[in-house]
Every structure is written in C-alpha cells, then in structure tokens.
C-alpha cells in the first residue's frame, strides 16, 4: 500500500479474480508492450510527516513579502483577509465538489456563485457577471474576444499603454491566430491621454480598453471615451481594481460595456501569482456572447426557487468549435473567497478598506515627495499606487531597501523604456504608518 490507496493485498486479489486477470500487469494489453511500464526517474515516496517537513524547508528558503514591510503591487496586493474567508473555502463540501452540473446536489455552490455574480454587478455597476475566469489578464483577453464577436467584421483593438503589461501580453498570446490589429500601446512611457486614445477609435474598432485605476495607479472620468466609443460602435472595456470600486464611481456609470479585473485583492493570498480570480461583467445585450459559466435562478418541480448553470449553448461542451470560448474549469473556489470577503466586510467595510489604502498611499507619496532626490507623479489623481522618480536605478534602490528589511516597489523600467529609474509604489491597509516612515527614511539613505 502506498500514498492514499485503500487496497489491501486481499482486495487486489479478489478484484483481479472477479475481472478474470492474473495480475495487474495483465490489464493493459492495449498499451504497446515495448513501451509498457517504463522506469520513472522520480524521488521515492515519503510519509506525510516527511513531506510536510520538506515543503516547510522549501518555504523557509523564501522571504515572503507578506512578512515584511512590502510596497510591491503591480497587479498582486497584500490586503488583509479576514479569517472567515480561509475557513469557508476549506470546507470540504465546497473544496471537493465539482462544477455544479447536477443542480439537485450542488445548490450550495450554485447559490454562492449567484451571489458572487450579484456582488460583482454591484461593484462594477454592470448588468451581468459570469462565474469567473482564470485571472484578470485572461478576463481581459476574453473581453477582446467578446468585442470581436459582438462587432461583426471589425478587427481593430485600441489598448491603453497604461494597462498592465502582462495583461496586454496575454491578449497578444490569445489572439495570435485571429488576425487582429492591436494599436495604441506602443509608447515608451506608457502615457496616452484619453483624447489621444479616443482619436484612435474609428468605425473599424471593435474595442477600446483602459485601466481604472491604470497600471500607474491613476484614474480619471471615462465618460468622454465611452461617448466616443459609442459613437463609433465600439465597446469600451475597463480593467479595474475591485478595492478601488469600494469608493470610486463604478465604470458602469461612465458608460463601460465590459468591466474586468483581478479579484485577488478580495481576500485571496498573493501566493506567488495564483490561483486568483478574474471577474468579468457586461451589459445584458452581450450576455449571449459572453464566455464562462453563468448561474441563473429558476424553480424546481415543486415550484421552489433554485439555481442552475444556464445559457450552456454558448459553451464548449455544447457548441464545440463554435463556442464563445474554450473555458471549462474556472476559479470557482476563489470566487467563493471573494464573495465571503465582500460579505464579511460589507457595504461599509469595503469602503473603509478603499479609503485606508487611499489615505495611506497619499501619506506615503507626501513623505517620499519631501525627499530631495525623489519626486512623485501627481499628473492625475491616484488610488493606492503611485509613480516615484528615483535618483538611481530601481534595482539598486530596492537592494538598499532590502538590506533594511523593506521590499520596495515595482521597477517600471522593466516594461517601459522611458521609465528607467521609476518605481511603482503600492500601499494597502496592511502598511502601517511606521512602515511608511521607514520606507521614506530608507529611500533617503539609499539615494546616493
């Protein structure tokens, strides 16, 4: 017996006898004999105790940002997650259930998704939300595909260069076989005004997309861009941060057609980049072109309310090659985590988290702005992230910060050639005033 197998020797023998085989080796006659039972050059199995120790040893080789004063953001954030979030998603009834294809024995998952959809609509100001995508980047790529399918014969996509670089990279990977024209995001510094972006939208444009807040943490009124998009028959997609939507005007009120983003800030650990949850919301008129699972309300044979997966005719298991997307497995458990987070924080709590981030980020910007060798980009209002012009390469500054036990911000020179020496600093409710003061002091020390 090994691992998690329940089979005793007696079980094996009796089962083999029942099926008319002499040994286990006999039940693979269709596997080409010369290739059957190859050597597996893998380490030997261990007891659970030893495996836990091995993983703990691997973990101890890391310096988790969550355990330090960290100002790294850029798409993954160290927000506080109330204990009840983790405890709920550990319940075996949620954890070890499959996609709810059989609704009579899946009402728990189905109702939880239905409530998630409702909360995402409330946050974004949109009509409908799906049950989730893999992450913010793939939600965004699915928005491009929805726009192409909804605006027949159009193939131009206008992308703000201030959308997360990896999200734009995923759009390029996803659409490499589709023959699309992706424009707008080739500037060296990532700056393109809304007017300049709007000027790129024409009657061949399927979609124009912006960040809100954008990759640099900044936000502005998107209404003029929405009006231009509408006039040209293009869709406006907004990539957003769900914590920011606790206080900022929702994109739906500014005329957005699709709102997507990364749900990780809603109580999900950073976990080195995943698993996260991509949210996706749109207008009623696009619901049949939307990708992903959808849960709808209905009644059972006795007239009692219940929930089912619906509009399956959009999906790959029915429509096959003509489906709106290939997505099957999504991030349901992470969507559940986000729902629990939004429930337990609630209407007041989410706004408080948003405002804490806002005030602390502005305090940090003020303190850093006082340093003589640094300046902060205040060209637009910002939420919880802002851009700092540094006197030296960011990698050198960050090395100096790390010597002082601080994890510095994101090096924008990685993605934008004209932003050498610019650091994107993220501040959340988890960053104390002491941490922020220590950051400002350390930045002053490592300036030269």
């Amino acid at each position: 017996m090994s691992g998690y197998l329940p089979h005793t020797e007696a079980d094996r023998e009796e089962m083999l006898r029942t099926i008319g085989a002499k040994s286990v080796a006999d039940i693979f006659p269709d596997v080409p004999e010369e290739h059957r039972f190859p050597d597996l050059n893998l380490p030997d199995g261990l007891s659970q105790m030893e495996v836990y120790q091995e993983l703990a040893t691997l973990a101890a080789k890391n310096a988790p940002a969550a355990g330090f004063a960290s100002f790294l953001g850029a798409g993954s954030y160290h927000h506080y997650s109330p204990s009840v979030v983790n405890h709920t998603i550990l319940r075996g009834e949620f954890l070890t259930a499959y996609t709810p294809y059989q609704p009579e024995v899946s009402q728990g998952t189905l109702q939880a998704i239905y409530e998630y959809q409702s909360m995402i609509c409330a946050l974004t100001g949109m009509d409908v939300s799906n049950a989730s995508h893999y992450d913010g980047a793939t939600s965004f790529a699915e928005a491009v595909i929805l726009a192409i399918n909804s605006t027949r014969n159009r193939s131009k996509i206008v992308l703000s260069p201030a959308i997360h670089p990896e999200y734009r990279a995923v759009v390029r990977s996803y659409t490499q076989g589709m023959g699309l024209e992706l424009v707008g995001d080739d500037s060296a510094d990532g700056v393109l005004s809304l007017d300049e972006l709007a000027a790129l939208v024409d009657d061949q444009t399927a979609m124009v997309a912006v960040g809100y807040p954008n990759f640099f943490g900044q936000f502005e009124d998107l209404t003029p861009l929405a009006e231009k998009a509408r006039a040209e028959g293009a869709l406006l997609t907004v990539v957003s941060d769900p914590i920011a939507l606790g206080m900022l005007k929702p994109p739906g009120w500014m005329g957005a057609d699709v709102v997507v983003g990364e749900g990780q800030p809603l109580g999900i650990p950073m976990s080195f980049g995943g698993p996260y949850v991509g949210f996706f919301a749109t207008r009623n008129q696009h619901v049949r072109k939307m990708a992903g699972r959808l849960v709808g309300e209905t009644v059972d044979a006795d007239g009692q309310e219940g929930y089912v997966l619906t509009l399956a005719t959009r999906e790959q298991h029915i429509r096959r090659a003509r489906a709106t997307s290939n997505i099957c497995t999504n991030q349901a458990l992470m969507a559940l985590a986000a729902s629990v987070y939004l429930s337990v924080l609630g209407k007041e709590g989410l706004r408080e988290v948003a405002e804490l981030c806002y005030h602390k980020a502005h305090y940090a910007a003020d303190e850093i702005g006082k340093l003589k060798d640094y300046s902060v980009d205040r060209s637009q209002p910002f939420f919880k992230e802002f851009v700092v012009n540094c006197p030296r390469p960011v990698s050198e500054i960050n090395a100096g910060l790390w010597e002082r036990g601080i994890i510095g911000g994101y090096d924008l020179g990685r993605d934008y050639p004209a932003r050498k020496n610019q650091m994107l600093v993220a501040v959340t409710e988890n960053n104390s005033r002491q941490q922020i003061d220590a950051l400002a002091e350390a930045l002053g020390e490592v300036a030269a």
Partner: protein
Amino acid sequence: MKKEPLIYDLGSPGRRGVTMPAPDVPLAEMPADDLLRGDDLDLPEVSEIDVVRHYLRLSHLNHSIDQDMYPLGSCTMKYNPRLNEDTARLPGLAGLHPYQDGSQVQGALELMYNLQEWLTEIGGFAGTSLQPAAGASGEFTGILMMRAYHLDRGDTKRDTILIPDSAHGTNPASTSMSGLKVVELPSDERGNIDLEALKAECGDHVVGLMITNPNTLGLFEEHIVEVIETIRGCGGLVYGDGANMNALVGIVKPGELGFDVIHYNLHKTFSTPHGGGGPGSGPVAVSERMVPFLPGPIVARDSDGFRFVQPEKSIGRMKAFYGNFGVLVRAYTFMRVYGGDGLRDMSQMAVLNANYLMKRVSEGYDIPYGNRFCMHEFVAEGDLLDIDVHALDISKRLMDYGFHPPTNYFPLGKPAGTTLNVHGALMIEPTETESKETLDAFAEALLAIRKEADENPDLLHSAPHVTPVARLDEVRAAKQLVLCCRPIPEPPV
C-alpha cells in the same frame, strides 16, 4: 427543505462583520465628488456569524468527494489530501509576491523547477511549462505552439487540426480560438479512431492531431503507434489531451509513443481539489522540437540557483505571472507522498477499480466494448428505451442512494456498433481512492435502480426525492434570465 435565503436578505442596514482599524495617517484630500460612487455600494450588511452560518448552510446543499463517491467520468474525482491544503498555506509560499527579487523566492523557484522536471519525466518529454491555468488553457497553449512550430519553419499552408468525434468539447473550441479549422474523425467499431478516415484526411494542410488517450470511452487506442506514424507521415504533430492521464502514470510515457505535446490536469491526476469548478492547473509538457515554443516564463537552473527564463521562440504568456502556483504546491506535495513507484501503483489501482466496477455494473447494464479491458473509466448504456427510462433518470435516482451521478453527457460521436447517443451514457470513473466496499455499494445501487426501472419507472422519472431541491427547470432559467439578485444601481442624478 427551507431554502437558504440570499446573503442579501440576511442582516440589517448598518450591521457589519469585520471592522477595519482607524487611519493612522493624516487624511488626504478626497478626489472630486464626480469621481466617487457615494453611498450606494450594494453589498450585504451582515455580522460575521451571519456569514459563517450562511455559507455553512449552503455547503450542506452540496455533494462532495468528502461526503461520498463522485464517479464523474473524465473528471477524476479522487480524494483531495488535506496535507496539500496545509503546504499550500505555508506563509513562506502563500505570502510570496510574484514580483519579488529572485533571491527572495529561491524555494518557490526550486519547487517549480522540480515539478517541471517530474512532469517532463512522467510524460517522457523534453520540457514543461507550468503556466496554463486549467486543462482548456493547456489545450489552447498546445495548439498555439503547434501552429507556431509550423509557421517558424515557413510552412504557412497548414490550417487544420484533426480531432476524433469522441473528444471533449474544449478540443474543438481551443482549436477555433487559435484561428484553425477543425475536422472531426469518426470512431471504428472497436472504439478506436477510424484509421482509414484518418489517412483520408491527412495531408500538408494538417497542423496536427488532437487525441485523448485513453479516449472518452475509457479505451486505450489500439492502433496508437500507427495513428501517430500516419499523422507524422504528413508532417503533422500529435497533441495529447491529458484529461485521462490518471490511467497512464508509469504505465506508458506519451512522449515515447511520439506525442509532441500533452497537458496535465493537476486537479485530476495529481489530486488538487476542484473547488466547485476551479481553480485547476494545466501544465504542458513537450517533445524536444517544441521546447523553444513553450509559454513563459519557465524556471531554469544554473550555478547561481533558479531563475525565470523566456523560451527562445515562446508563444508568449497565457496568464499573468507564472501559473496557479498554489495548485502547483498541492500537486508537488501529492507527488512527494507517492514517489515514482507509488504513482505507478496509483494508476494501476485506478484501472483495476474501473475494471472491477465495470464487471459489477455489467450484471445489469450493457457495456459497449465490455469485452475489452477498460482503462480508468468506462461507459454503460443508460438509455433503456424499451421501458422509457433514460440515463438522466438513472443518474437522478442515484442521488437518492447518496451517490453523485456519473457523467451523462457524451460527446457528439456515436461510436459505431452501439446505440450510445449524446444523452444516453453513464460514464463512470471511480478513481483509485475508492475502496472495494465503496465500489460494491455503488454497483449495488446501480443494480437496484435497474430493477426499479422495470418495476416502477416513475420512481426514476420523478427522482431525485431526497435532495434539497427536486429537478430544476433549466429551460425556464435560460428563457427568463435572472442572473443577478439585485437591481442595478443607476448613477445618482
């Protein structure tokens, strides 16, 4: 049973769960009012215990592996070890930011590197990328790589992927997303790919073949060597859908058979939980010639340790960051418990369980190709047309016996020589973690239902009887779409 209210209908205005600390910094000037949402945020107003009770009561409405057998064909619903949950939550792993400097995350990179190596070894391949987030993402990745491989050779006329008609729907959908055409291949009278049809479709327009082996009937392709030779003969590549890999670990290496790409479903074969629909993880492993096209970044090792690199001709990235890392930790943990020989034993017991259960179920049901050994799953005919009982009725009745039904939906292809159709299948995958007693209990339930079908078919037609809700009106759900329980707030005038 009383319906659990919506979370929005619990609580009371002004009530709250978790409170946040007061600001410890001076308050900044707020943005202009026209950039703010005001007081309309329509989220629940509940206490923490309201939340705990609500989700606990909802959880009771689910069937889960933790409760009892969950024999969904092709879904590999095996036990999800709790050890995996603990290791994935180690602060040194769960607390890592994806953009931390490499020197701060060497343990995470080592874990990813080892997992890449192990998945490469299990498949008999040359390289692996852990990036795809799920099986369908892995398929899409693989098809994009196959496309890129031909384009890189300057071969621009290939535009078609061949797919057996018994394939899962994600196969053709992933192909379409890549901008390629799908040609479906029929099955022969033994459940294999129809070789003559394959030969007829092969040509210099073919990017490759996408094949699930063992196939959806749970049968290992009897002519696998010839199938691969045929497709290679016309310059095509071979993609393996690894959804059914639970049958093959240590039994055969797809790379040695001539496959160019497969994806693994870590949430099937390597025990990570399905979570009500996800998250999964769908790493792709590839042959030597496909390595330069892998999605990146992937982890490399040199004398300084581990670091991310981008493969030379990479198709790009398939998600932000590096993959569903927390799922990778769970799979790694699982593989360390079993080790190489243990994993082979795992697949052998999965196949033994399926064959034993097939034998038991055949006492009351027709099994197409039941004269062959199956692999990790099998299909029983669930449509008893002479007595007007359908597979769905049997499935719903199984719920009354405390079991989750098998997969009912069977892909398009009607295997030659059977009466199987799209809705008539009972596709059963027991997995290796079910004991003989559980398999016997499940078989006894199916056989009892077979008897009920003859004696009292209405009992099946009106099933389930003991579940929280009765059969639900799916047509109404799609016609009168209600997808959100709240009125959509309008901007204040």
